[in-house]
């Protein structure tokens, strides 16, 4: 059938097309940085290493375990901060459910929320010194607020009839919160986790740039001072790829845990 084959062709081209632009750009980069710069402006070659040099650096740093050590340090900070930031879920449920809780906490949240996590770095260094606790605090702030805001919204969006149904079936206030409001808000809570992980991951690197002696942020800043631009770019790429993988992972988990949510939201 012509339509089916046309569709197939498009799919195949689409798959190729997705990588085509990237491939061309990489090739251009390789030509400019690997052949043109060394001949025309050799003094600039250290500023822009070609992809092959970065690839070489990657093999070297993975081989020595250095990259994975830094990556693990960063991931560990993110996960610990996430564990603490989960406190946003009960707080968000309370704020979404009880008017008094919203009235009490909302002004505080609204003032603190627009302050970027990075703006907390100076104060947090004074409070906690340089190291894990300070880093985790910055990431915590990055995750906490998106998670809180989404949890509140998730609770407010719970279908009133679900709550009514539970109520007339005999559920107590506590049972309604646990058995209806929490699960009904979970899809949006997962959205909050995804956004929070993203913001946290960005904040993490900023925190490590200034106040850490390990981690991916530290790695790229340390490499900068040694003018190892290949390592700087490698570190940046690692941050990007790992951020993407984390996001995909959370989405996968959400799909697994909430098989009903996509269909229900339609």
């Amino acid at each position, binding site marked *: 059938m012509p339509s089916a084959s046309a569709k197939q062709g498009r799919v195949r081209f689409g798959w190729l097309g997705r990588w085509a632009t990237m491939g061309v750009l990489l090739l251009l980069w390789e030509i400019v940085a690997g052949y043109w710069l060394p001949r025309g402006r050799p003094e600039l070659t250290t500023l822009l290493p070609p992809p092959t040099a970065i690839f070489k650096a990657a093999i070297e740093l993975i081989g020595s375990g250095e990259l994975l050590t830094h990556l693990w340090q960063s991931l560990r900070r993110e996960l610990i901060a996430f564990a603490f930031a989960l406190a946003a879920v009960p707080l968000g449920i309370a704020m979404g459910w009880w008017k008094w809780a919203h009235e009490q906490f909302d002004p505080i949240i609204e003032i603190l929320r627009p302050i970027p996590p990075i703006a907390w770095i100076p104060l947090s260094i004074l409070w906690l010194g340089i190291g894990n606790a300070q880093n985790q605090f910055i990431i915590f702030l990055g995750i906490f607020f998106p998670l809180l805001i989404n949890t509140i919204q998730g609770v407010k969006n719970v*279908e009133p*009839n*679900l709550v*009514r*149904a*539970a*109520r*007339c*079936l*005999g*559920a*107590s206030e506590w*049972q309604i919160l646990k*058995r*209806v409001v929490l*699960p*009904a808000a*979970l899809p949006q809570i997962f959205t909050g986790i995804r956004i929070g992980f993203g913001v946290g991951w960005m904040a993490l690197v900023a925190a490590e740039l200034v106040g850490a002696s390990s981690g991916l942020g530290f790695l790229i800043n340390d490499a900068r001072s040694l003018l190892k631009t290949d390592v700087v770019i490698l570190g940046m790429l690692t941050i990007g790829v790992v951020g993407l993988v984390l996001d995909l992972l959370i989405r996968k988990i959400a799909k697994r845990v*909430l*098989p*009903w*949510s996509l*269909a*229900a939201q339609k």
Partner: protein
Amino acid sequence: MARLVVDGVHKIYPALQAGQDDVIALRDVNFVVEDHEFCCLLGHSGCGKTTLLNIMAGFEETTAGKITLDGTPVGPPHWTRTMVFQDYALFPWLTVERNIGFGLEVKGVPEAERARIVAEHVKLVGLAGFETRLPHQLSGGMKQRVAIARALAVDPQVALLDEPFAALDAQNRGLLQDELVRISLATKKTMVLITHSIEEAIKLSDRIIVMTKRPGTVKANIVVDIPRPRSEDDPRVIALKKELRALIADEREVELA
């Protein structure tokens, strides 16, 4: 026993803004639903029938007057008065079984007992084989069967049904109406159902309460003692249909005037 008495119920919603009038949703509504009776509240949208049902369920309070169940005024929502919603309101994360068992679970009914009651109600509404499905995998008609089973599984005194078949296609609606007749005869529950369909009211009711447009009052209180199943060709059915049409048509003129 489950005798539901609606006694001089008024419901007034205060004006939201200055200069607006208060909205009188219900004015001096009086009627009695006897034990084991199937009662339909029939009226156009905006006649306050949903408000009345919400008051029976305990979701809203009366402004004046009271509703009693076996002599006790109804208070906040309680499992003795369960509701079936037009939009089903099933818990989308729970399987059919667990939706039906929800009320039993929060009541703390032991698992074996719960499983027995759930199985019984799955059978009652004809959902055998679908126990482990999630609501989004079911058709509208099947969802409403789950909702009916869920409302009956806790063994309430009264089941309240808020236009339960309005969202279904004509064929499914007819089927579910027949099923509900069968279920109500089998369970002998007192039921109150809201509808704006004359045919539905005739098919299901032991008693039909016709309501006027806002402010909602009782226009007619008709006991239907035509034996079931009721054929559309039955002269008594035809006569009743005519009578109800006239009552309802009056209301439409009021609306236009």
